[in-house]
């Protein structure tokens, strides 16, 4: 295993999938995870779209992979500094500990948009306005309630919060929110069949296998209402419900309604780790995501020798895309190690 040492920053799906594939190929892999547990954003999810497979199952699978004998996992390890010296990559954590390897994979992933920046939507101000992440936490508890602890009669989802929005500096589409809203609205209807669910959108982007089918099912089987219009403003009513306004664009008329919960489908942004480390090593691209050498052909490589990228640190990706990308990254790393 001489000269086959790899450091992976980030123990989410991208990091673990790459680590496992490198380990299978006789590399000595060090995974550095800043949190106490591996799994990254998977930890915040109950069921996965479009299959409704339990996220726990996926997590368990990652857990097993991470236990491969060629993988050394360090949790609670926050890497603050990266540098390339004597043909080796060095990663230094907050306590000063340094890890060294022949190649380095950045799989630092994404974070969700901080909805407080969209003040007109009242997140952090009105308790009836929540994010899709908080709704997922309610699914974990198995109980969907209003801030007063009541069963919500009416729930609205709003897509593109923090995505496709010049005002917050994110022009791009986060790609996963549309299908996530479909998934979450079905989950609500399964728990609370009498609750009315409205989903506000500009475009429904069902660009994945079985996505369109799921969208159709949400309409036919679960009576989810889709309204084409972006919510412009949310405000609390005197009984602490949420008044929302939009244009019913297909009807060309303004629309308002009061709901018990407004769920903001928060978009994905580069995680702080992605932005900070990307900047340090000169691969920070647009919106703080890490920039690969060439989208068409060298998407796991960077301008830096021995530095590789995998997963949603590059751009918003779904879980299957992330995992496929990680396997591709592992392959690129093996090529690199073999050549050097």
């Amino acid at each position, binding site marked *: 295993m001489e000269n086959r040492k790899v450091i992976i920053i980030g123990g989410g799906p991208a990091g673990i999938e790459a680590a496992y594939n490198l380990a299978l190929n006789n590399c000595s892999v060090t995974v550095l995870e800043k949190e106490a547990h591996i799994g990254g954003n998977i930890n915040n999810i109950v069921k996965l779209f479009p299959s409704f497979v339990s996220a726990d199952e996926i997590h368990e699978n990652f857990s097993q992979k991470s236990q491969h004998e060629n993988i050394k996992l360090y949790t609670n390890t926050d890497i603050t500094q990266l540098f390339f010296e004597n043909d080796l990559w060095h990663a230094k954590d907050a306590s000063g500990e340094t890890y060294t390897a022949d190649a380095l994979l950045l799989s630092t992933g994404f974070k969700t948009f901080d909805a407080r920046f969209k003040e007109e939507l009242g997140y952090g101000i009105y308790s009836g306005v929540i994010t899709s992440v908080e709704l997922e936490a309610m699914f974990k508890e198995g109980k969907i309630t209003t801030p007063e602890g009541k069963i919500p009669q009416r729930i609205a989802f709003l897509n593109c919060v923090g995505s496709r929005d010049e005002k917050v500096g994110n022009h791009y589409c986060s790609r996963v929110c549309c299908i996530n809203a479909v998934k979450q609205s079905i989950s609500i209807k399964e728990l609370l069949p009498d609750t009315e669910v409205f989903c506000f959108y500009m475009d429904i982007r069902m660009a994945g296998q079985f996505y369109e089918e799921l969208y159709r099912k949400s309409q036919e089987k679960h009576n989810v209402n889709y309204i084409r219009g*972006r919510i412009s403003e949310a405000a609390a009513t005197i009984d602490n419900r949420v008044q929302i306004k939009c*244009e019913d664009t297909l009807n060309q*008329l303004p629309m308002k309604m009061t709901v018990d919960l407004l769920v903001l489908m928060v978009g994905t942004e580069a995680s702080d780790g992605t932005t900070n480390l990307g900047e340090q090593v000169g691969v920070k691209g647009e919106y703080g995501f890490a920039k690969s050498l060439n989208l068409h052909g060298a998407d796991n490589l960077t301008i830096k020798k021995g530095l590789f990228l995998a997963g949603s640190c590059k751009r918003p990706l779904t879980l299957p895309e992330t995992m496929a990308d990680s396997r591709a990254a592992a392959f690129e790393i093996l090529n690199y190690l073999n050549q050097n």
Partner: protein
Amino acid sequence: MSKYIDKIHKDVRFIEGLKACMNCGVCTAICPAAEFYNFDPRQICNILLEKDEEKIEELLKTDTIWYCGQCMSCKARCPRGNVPALLIAVLRMLSQETGLFVESEKGRQQYAIKKTIGENIINTGYCVHVDHVNPKLHPEQGPIWKWYTENAEEVADRLGANYNKVGPGALRKIPNESIDEIKKIFQITGGLAFFDKIDSFSEDKAKELHFNSVKELLNDEYFYHVFIHNSNNHNKQ
């Protein structure tokens, strides 16, 4: 040859006000005009993006561009940084320059605004002054307003004003030299010629509609017509 598009595209307010629109409707959602008029600022953006001369001409002739209240609520919200209200301002100017404003009920009202606000500015240096808000034309101002206009100097000066007198203070008479400079500015920048355009197109329209249009406001039938007439046909699609 482009009749309207080149002119529109040269206006700084157009350059600032329209990038590309994704039809999300956040502008219409909170537009005070969209709620009470058959008005959809989102579609104004679409028509301008289409660059269709005929559609633009149609727009310049209709009530649509006169519904906006210029509150700029749309500016604060657009996720693409567009400002439908600025586009409306550009279209309104073009509609008046080309005389198409007299083709619509709401457009014809520009004559009344020019006769009141427009002339107030060049003659007195105020857009609005106590003496301009005639209770007959403003019944909604109520009995206290009427009382105030009847006792304007006594009431206003008790509040520290300098009602129609020289020297600083609220409601003072603006010095002639300042009025002359204002007029000169209007003349040089084309403001007076613009007023003349509004007048002359309106006078032609008044003739066509058989109204007498005279210089004295209170005897001007056409003024009253455009000021009061409402077909009540403005909130249906």
